[in-house]
């Protein structure tokens, strides 16, 4: 079974990363680095690279880059397999559906990882090179930022895999759940945010990257974020639940 999961993960990686489309993702992932370069070149003299990373780059990546990469990297792989009917090659093999789903999920996470590393480490590197005094601190924040994004992309990809199998219009659902219900509702004042995955990602962002506020003032992080333990637990539960529901959906959905 492990071999089957590895094989499907490799297939998912190949279908996303050995593709010209990966250039678009790389450009998206480089936007924070470009912004960092522009900021350091044209900003006021007292710009703190650490504060800039915390209040500007980390929120950009958590609010936008993370859901964007999870969504557009995962959905097309699964959705096109169903649309073209090529999923039949996989589902007519003696492999349980949960292993098929797990293989695709692992492949999606592995595909997202280098892009998220680029999104998190490249800005730190740019800021660190231009401000050598704070290089160590900036890079340290960059590594925590990377870890945050990689941990967070797991449930995001799991959700996208479920939606791609369960729905024939997964893009709408994913955009709604990741951007509106995620980023927007997850940042609202009040109790609605506890139902949003974004709230728990931001909980981790606060303790791992020290985010207290966002530079733009838009969609600020919660003043009372969940604890690290609760946040990690929610990310794990969501991932397992999505995987379970995805394999049920894979059994239920007809292939034609």
């Amino acid at each position: 079974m492990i071999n089957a999961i590895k094989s499907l993960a490799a297939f998912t990686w190949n279908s996303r990363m050995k593709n010209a489309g990966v250039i678009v993702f790389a450009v998206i992932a480089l936007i924070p680095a470009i912004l960092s370069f522009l900021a350091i070149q044209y900003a006021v003299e007292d710009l703190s690279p650490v504060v800039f990373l915390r209040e500007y780059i980390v929120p950009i990546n958590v609010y936008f880059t993370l859901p964007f990469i999870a969504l557009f990297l995962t959905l097309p792989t699964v959705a096109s397999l169903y649309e073209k009917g090529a999923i039949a090659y996989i589902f007519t093999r003696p492999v349980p559906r949960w292993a098929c789903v797990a293989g695709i999920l692992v492949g999606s996470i592995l595909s997202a990882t280098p892009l998220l590393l680029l999104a998190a480490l490249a800005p730190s590197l740019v800021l660190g090179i231009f401000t050598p005094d704070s290089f160590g601190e900036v890079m340290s924040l960059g590594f925590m930022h990377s870890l945050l994004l990689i941990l967070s992309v797991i449930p995001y990809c799991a959700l996208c895999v479920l939606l791609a199998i369960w729905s024939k219009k997964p893009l709408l659902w994913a955009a709604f759940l990741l951007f509106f219900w995620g980023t927007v509702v997850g940042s609202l004042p009040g109790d609605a945010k506890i139902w949003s995955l974004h709230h728990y990602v931001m909980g981790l962002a606060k303790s791992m990257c020290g985010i207290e506020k966002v530079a733009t003032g838009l969609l600020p992080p919660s003043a009372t974020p969940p604890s690290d333990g609760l946040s990690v637990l929610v990310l794990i539960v969501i991932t397992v639940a999505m995987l379970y529901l995805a394999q049920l959906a894979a059994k239920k959905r007809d292939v034609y």
Partner: protein
Amino acid sequence: MSSPAIECKNLSRWYGEVQGLAGLNVTLDKGVFGLLGPNGSGKSTFMRLLTGQIHASRGSVKIFGEIMVPGNYHVLRHIGYSIGEDVHFENETAIDFMKMLAVLGGEHGAAATKRAMQALDFMGMAEKANVRLCEMSKGMRQRVKVAQALLFEPDLLLLDEPLNGMDPTNRRQTIDRVREWGESGRTVLLASHVLHEVESVTDRLMMLHHGRLLAEGRLSDIRKLIDRKPRRATIKGKNLRQLISELLGDELITGFNQDIDGRFHLDTFDLPVLLEKLSVYGRSGIIETLETDDQELELVYSLLLSDNA
């Protein structure tokens, strides 16, 4: 295995209001079977039900005695399936595609590569192993599709329109391979909408029409049915009346009529002999066009439907 390869009871499937398959009762054991029917007759629906890709709306299907439903992956160990549509994994080479499927089937490492190469070689595709599927001709991809179905030497081989897009040489080779497979004591079900394709592989067939089983049995019996009915040749030309009167004097023609376009429709029980005679007149320029009802499948269907009615 003691249980029949395929056992369907009242197997039905609807797509919304559209009937894909209706009340199919079939039991198939060893040998090669043809599944014949025009597009939309339910062949692919039947194949998908047999491989657990879709749910039955009613009834059941058993493969070697085990109930087949989506998710029952154990049964799939016995099945090799070639998809009807020309779908493939865009970026994969033939060998990568085959290796991946070999791993999903339970092999790994060098054993998976060896198995993949053996199957490609069996279908005469070993030399193209490193060519990407999207760069192959449709006929080549068809052979890879059949090869992946043969990967684990299945006891039940399901081929949905496997000869589509193949050139005559490849077609001949594939037919030989499939026949060889059936003769080795396994079960092969080959779906096609072309009568002579099925005829070239087997004499035993099932005919589907609008999701229903129209006929089941030996092709030779259906051939006899065809022979019981006159065939028709349609000719058009100049000064055909003399020709017609000559032919009518012969017992070869059992009936004739002329349509408003001036074409003569000649009915006969021995179409080849009539065509031979007409070709002589054709060479002399009297006959300008000659058509025959050589759409055998259509003829078979119309005969069977009229008999059923």
